[in-house]
């Protein structure tokens, strides 16, 4: 794939560029360490980009959920946002795409653990959680929960391309994409394939402690490098309320000011904080709909505000 070929540091002076029809064939290419890769790869942009664009034409907002750090609640926040978006307007259609290939969590969090996807004439049919909420994940394609997907980058890349170009979503208002931690293959593939399809932007999830913020700063740097708009940062697990004495504890202390301060430093919008509620964690494990079942939880209330802000940011772009 031409788009994945990286330029060597010592580019020949008259390098025709990896996307050119002469890639690897021009006289300047003689002796270049990447000559063979350039010459054998198809010239021009990846055909997948066009396929993704066509497939996602009916999707109004495409939002990536990112975090440099693992285990901060990307999947939980994705599930919360999607459930909340679907619940606030029954006429809107929301979908979640899980591009965490090695550790898919969406099937469990959304409560559709043992479902399967079906193939139809117009592509893969996603799994429906609700009338207006659908999910797609590699978890549906594995035969056992013990199955490990031991794949290197190019294979993951191919899977993501398939997910983006072959799932029959229908008309969608929001497509939320849950990602694995890091700034590597999955993230680059998603941003490349979505480059023509009009990616709305990214929601970044973090926890308050410095060791998480450290990786999240890298993720924001990544967004700047690949030109993804940061829609805002959500701080998860901010405060724990003891169910016995109601005392507030900082389990992951924000020694460096937490997400809010980081947002000010890096000049990105801050969407809000979600407290840590063990009931919500348990509902996630069981895949229950905590929004309708726990309307009084502080998490659900804080979530309402975040969704409101997010919708405003997404809608403002459209006009």
């Amino acid at each position, binding site marked *: 794939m031409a788009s994945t070929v990286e330029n060597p540091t010592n580019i020949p002076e008259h390098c025709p560029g990896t996307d050119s029809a002469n890639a690897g064939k021009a006289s300047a290419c003689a002796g270049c360490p990447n000559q063979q890769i350039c010459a054998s790869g198809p010239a021009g942009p990846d055909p997948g980009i066009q396929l993704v664009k066509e497939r996602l034409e009916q999707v109004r907002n495409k939002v990536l959920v990112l975090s440099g750090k693992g285990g901060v609640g990307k999947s939980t926040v994705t599930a919360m946002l999607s459930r909340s978006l679907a619940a606030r307007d029954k006429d809107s259609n929301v979908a979640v795409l899980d591009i965490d290939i090695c550790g898919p969590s969406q099937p*469990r969090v959304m409560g559709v653990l043992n479902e399967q996807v079906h193939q139809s004439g117009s592509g893969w049919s996603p799994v429906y959680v609700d009338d207006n909420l659908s999910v797609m994940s590699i978890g549906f394609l594995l035969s056992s929960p013990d*199955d490990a997907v031991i794949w290197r980058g190019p294979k993951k890349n191919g899977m993501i391309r398939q997910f983006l170009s072959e799932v029959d979503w229908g008309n969608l208002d929001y497509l939320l994409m849950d990602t694995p931690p890091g700034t590597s293959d999955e993230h680059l593939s998603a941003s490349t394939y979505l480059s023509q399809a009009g990616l709305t932007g990214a929601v970044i999830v973090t926890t308050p402690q410095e060791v998480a913020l450290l990786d999240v700063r890298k993720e924001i740097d990544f967004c700047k*490098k690949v030109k993804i708009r940061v829609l805002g940062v959500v701080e998860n697990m901010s405060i724990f309320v*003891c169910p016995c004495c109601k005392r507030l*504890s900082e389990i992951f202390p924000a020694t460096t000011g937490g997400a809010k301060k980081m947002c000010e430093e890096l000049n990105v919008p801050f969407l809000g904080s979600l407290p*840590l509620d063990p009931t919500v*964690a348990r509902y*996630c494990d069981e895949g229950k709909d905590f929004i309708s079942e726990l309307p009084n939880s502080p998490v659900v209330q804080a979530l309402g505000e975040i969704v409101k802000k997010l919708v405003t940011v997404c809608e403002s772009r459209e006009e």
Partner: protein
Amino acid sequence: MLENVKHVILVLSGKGGVGKSTVSTQLALTLKEKNFKVGLLDIDLCGPSIPYLLQLEDKGVHQSDEGWVPVYTDQEQKLAVMSIGFLLNSRNDAVVWRGPKKTAMVKQFLTDVSWGELDYLLIDTPPGTSDEHISVMESLKGVKCDGAILVTTPQQVSIEDVRKEVTFCKRTKIPILGIVENMSGFVCPSCTECTNIFSKGGGEALANLAEVPFLGVLPIDPRVGALLGKACVKELPESPSAKTFNEIAEKITCT
């Protein structure tokens, strides 16, 4: 390059944010307190945490005739550390690399660092079962790898990913030294009521299911997170975490 290293131990987890780096650092510090010479290699290229956890963020790596000289945490050079964090200009810099480049970096870390004589080399990994993990496995083929410690948190969503890591170890024939359950309960500092924020017992159940040893539980203790480079077993000897780290270290060293 690893011929003078007596034992190599991997710290793995399918899930992110469960405390792989914290467990690796504290385990390295525990072994160091027991007078072993320890090396700590961080192969999480996109999110290196070890330099921060050991407060070595401003340190750099030097080149010598024998290869890269790791960063030492102490004068006696008993704990050597290597991470991509030492090679970045700014702590905000992202390493946006695809697989092949990460593979090359991991290989370099395994072959070009002059660790000297080491009793234990702990390798901290990123989450998942992908490029970095396959590369480490391949590079370690020629070296004797003692096995892997798997870290998990108790809730199902995390256990699910760690089950995949167990399969990865079985398929690549790395012995599993055991499973550690981290964040397994939070004791409220005011009423001492223990809340199982992320439920409890998942790690042990997984160990039984996978028929691998269970190494112990580590409760959520904000004090341990705030240690930054100091050994839990020395600073908080009475804490339940210190007890668990001592037990794990014992189990590793007696085999």
